[in-house]
């Protein structure tokens, strides 16, 4: 057995062949089976297998994109559970984006934010208010609801409004010492929820506990996107942009400054890194991802109310980040996928399975203990187990690996960075900084 594994590990073409075969098999079973959660999950698993193969990066991305854009939708399309599958896939996309946002705050900058769902809420309500008649209550100009055409602008708008909230939240909060930061952000998250819940008087801005309904669906070229499979592609594009942005940040001055601040604030300052500004950037960017997806969520669900934005949700996303691997992009993606599917599909399936077992008289599980209700229990247990035994997560964060050949070649000019003092071997370069 070991010999076979070693052989696979060594041979790229073998890996490719096996992977393609696996994808074909799972998509085929998805197409044939009427409604099989297992087949769907197995197809999603192919992403994980893809990650571990030793194929060159460009081909991994090509295969991954092919699965995301064609194979998955196509296979799911053949059966009656099409919208269900796409719904789950869309939800995964939304949560992966948020988890990546929280990953920047918690994983990279080391700031434990327990109120993260607030930015999601901000994005959702930003679109929700203007895409329903709600805005008429307080806006001095314009008629509402805005048509779904404005959805696309609102994605950008939601991004910036959430970022703004991130900064506003950050400014007071970041002066607070490490552990307290968690409590304070938790407090803020709750405050936002309570405020949204009560903003129906004196001026009705959020419609309070009643929520906003009939939110305008996205509209493009005159076509309304009402179905999950359509929203799926919207989510996919935003998600890909977010992944691209996060990877760029990881290998940049800003990403490094976050890691420095996380590891040793005093040393980071001594290197010229402004603490507050750096932390605010982390908050703002993390928040902006959630804000964008909040807009999409509102459009997709067509109804939002404060109960969608509770502490449980914030913890949800935290579990994703911890489970996957703090600071690790592939880890967080995996973690988000696992937790979302757990919530959306697996718990339901487990409950139905237990129900069938009890009708068959094999075991009786009291209703109070049905898996669907035991969400907190599972989260709590997962958090504890992973914190104790695998705090680095399923796919631990890996350091950036540099290839000295790439930067030592004299490509690019022999320019030097502007300096205050320079080694005397080059000429004195007292151009001030």
């Amino acid at each position: 057995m070991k010999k076979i594994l070693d052989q696979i590990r060594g041979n790229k073409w073998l890996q490719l062949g096996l992977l393609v075969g696996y994808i074909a098999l799972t998509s085929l079973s998805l197409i044939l089976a009427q409604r099989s959660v297992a087949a769907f999950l197995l197809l999603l698993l192919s992403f994980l297998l893809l990650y571990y193969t030793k194929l060159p990066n460009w081909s991994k991305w090509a295969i991954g994109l092919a699965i995301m854009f064609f194979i998955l939708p196509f296979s799911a399309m053949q059966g009656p559970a099409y919208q269900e599958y796409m719904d789950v896939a869309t939800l995964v996309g939304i949560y992966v984006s948020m988890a990546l946002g929280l990953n920047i705050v918690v994983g990279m900058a080391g700031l434990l934010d327990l109120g993260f769902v607030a930015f999601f809420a901000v994005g959702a309500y930003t679109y929700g208010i203007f895409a329903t008649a709600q805005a008429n209550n307080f806006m001095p100009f314009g008629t509402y609801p805005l048509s779904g055409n404005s959805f696309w602008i609102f994605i950008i708008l939601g991004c910036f409004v959430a970022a703004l909230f991130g900064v506003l939240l950050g400014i007071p909060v970041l002066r607070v010492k490490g552990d307290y930061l968690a409590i304070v952000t938790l407090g803020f998250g709750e405050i936002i929820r309570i405020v949204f819940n009560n903003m129906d008087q004196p001026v009705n801005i959020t419609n309070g506990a009643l929520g906003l309904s009939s939110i305008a669906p996205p509209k493009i070229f005159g076509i309304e996107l009402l179905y999950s499979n359509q929203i799926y592609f919207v989510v996919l594009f935003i998600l890909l942009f977010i992944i691209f942005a996060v990877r760029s940040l990881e290998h940049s001055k800003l990403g490094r400054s976050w890691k420095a601040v996380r590891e040793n604030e005093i040393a980071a300052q001594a290197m010229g890194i402004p603490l507050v500004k750096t932390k605010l950037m982390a908050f703002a960017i993390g928040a902006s991802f959630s804000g964008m997806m909040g807009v999409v969520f509102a459009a997709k669900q067509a109804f939002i109310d404060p109960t969608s934005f509770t502490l449980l949700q914030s913890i949800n996303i935290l579990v994703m980040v911890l489970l996957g691997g703090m600071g690790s992009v592939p880890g967080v993606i995996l973690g988000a996928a696992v937790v979302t599917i757990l919530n959306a599909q697996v718990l339901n399936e487990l409950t139905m399975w237990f129900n069938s077992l009890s009708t068959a008289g094999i075991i009786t599980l009291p209703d109070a203990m049905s898996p669907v209700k035991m969400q907190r229990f599972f989260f709590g247990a997962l958090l504890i187990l992973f914190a104790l035994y695998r705090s680095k997560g399923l796919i631990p964060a890996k350091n950036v690996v540099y290839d000295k050949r790439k930067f030592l070649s004299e490509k690019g000019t022999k320019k030097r960075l502007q300096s205050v003092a320079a080694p005397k071997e080059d000429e004195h370069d007292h151009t001030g900084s």
Partner: protein
Amino acid sequence: MTQVWDTLPQVLIDGLTLGAIYAIIALGYTMVYGILELINFAHGEIFMAGAFIGTAVLIGLTGLGWVAVMPAIFILLLVLVITGGLTGMLGMGIERLAYRPLRKASKLITLITAIGVSFLLQDIVRFITETQQNNYIVNTPSLFPGSLSISGLNIRYSFLVVIIVAILMMVALEFFVNRTKWGLAMRAVAQDQDTASLMSVNVNKVISVTFFVGSALGGATGVLFAIHYGTIDPYIGFILGLKAFTAAVLGGIGNIRGAMAGGMLLGLLEMFAAANLSAITAGLLSSEYKDVFAFAILILVLIFRPEGLFGRAAIEKV
């Protein structure tokens, strides 16, 4: 303005009751933080567990017929001791299983574990309760029904009970911490763990005792809460815990007297807000915002005076 004045006596009474409860729960937070520099997120749940265990014991005793026969004070004492003992052990167990292995780990991870424990406890209580009686909201039988009426003021007997027991507990803790050997050991470990161990203090034992005492008190407070307010659910620990933590920070985290003061102060402020917020802000903010009020205080204190009212600013060695 007259509304403020009129409601003041009732606000005082309710505020003191709530404040006493906050104060004792705050003690649990502050003691653990003083020793381990850890925010025991699950402490609120210990309080909640105490409320449920106490209720269960009380219902059991009622079933046995003891309640009808014996004086209420005695029953209360019995319930407090049993519940305190059980929650104390629960707290100790949590420290042993979930926190001790992570002593060397980063604060982030320990905090996350605490959150996990918190969630776990909430759900365990929920499904046990729900399995028993189809609903996770429980009504606690009242041990001290009835009330006094003094010049138009309605003072429930249970209020007196809560206040007196709370004060007794606080006095007992003061004595324990300042006048006993164990208390001295606790203070030593809180100051400097390594040196204390060099002075042959068994640090692990001291930490266990700290958790036991804090949790026992928290659990006992849960009983008081259940008896006074009558209705409990698995989620009371969360909000109350958060506010008690606010109280601990307000008073100066790690400072026991500060926690007591902070608790009382917060209770009074909150009741005041609940009664008068609408009037003061001319209807802009309803009393729903009283929770926001507590959070706002927390945030303000942490920003402008993180060492609290009675604490001393800590200086990090560079």
